[in-house]
């Protein structure tokens, strides 16, 4: 219930401002996601705001002790395209050798 309310608030904030909001899904679900080097709450699927007001690119990372870490850059164009196509950011970590 609380997460639904937070999601609704984020979507509302996204709609009222130019800050896009995308759902980030990570597998395994207990992996940690970092946005611009800052830790977001652990979890399999959650909406995150992508603020391009001070940067041209946003860095998304994910890590888990049993997997290879993930790193990717997202620019405004990529994020806008994902919103347009109603797509989420899906990160699937690869198991370590």
């Amino acid at each position, binding site marked *: 219930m609380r997460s639904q309310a937070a999601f609704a608030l984020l979507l509302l904030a996204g709609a009222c401002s130019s800050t896009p909001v995308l759902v980030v899904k990570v597998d395994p679900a207990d992996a940690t996601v970092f946005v611009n080097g*800052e830790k977001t709450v652990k979890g399999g699927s959650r909406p995150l705001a992508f603020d391009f007001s001070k940067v041209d690119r946003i860095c998304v990372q994910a890590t888990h002790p049993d997997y290879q*870490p993930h790193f990717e850059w997202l620019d405004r164009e990529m994020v806008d395209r994902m919103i347009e196509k109603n797509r989420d950011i899906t990160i699937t970590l690869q198991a*370590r050798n």
Partner: protein
Amino acid sequence: MSIRLLSSLSVLAVLAACGGVPKQRFRFDAIDVAESPRPCLVVVNDDWAAAAEKNQLVNVADDDELVLEIEFPTDETVVTMAPLTVENGKVVRMPKSRKEARDYSGFVEEPRKLRMRDPERQLFILPRKSSNS
């Protein structure tokens, strides 16, 4: 050389000196896949000697960040987070290449191309070296 040409060259030289190379401030940090701080050397544009000389270290004496002003003579500057082995708060062996960093520490270094308007905080997550890396 004509006076006009000389004065034009002087103006250009002054403009270049005043403008200089654009710089941006970044905060660097490194962790391993279990989110523990990882001691590292922060190497800019593959200048390993300068990085060691200027003590561009992170998480060596403490869990900290390194604040650096990075120059951008071109659109992108490569920053390599090179893992270190530390004992009693001191670097055991300072690497002089990516291979040495990997071999000495047992972790895999990460080079990253940075741009002027990238986020200020740059976190590197370094995995352990595997048998085939």
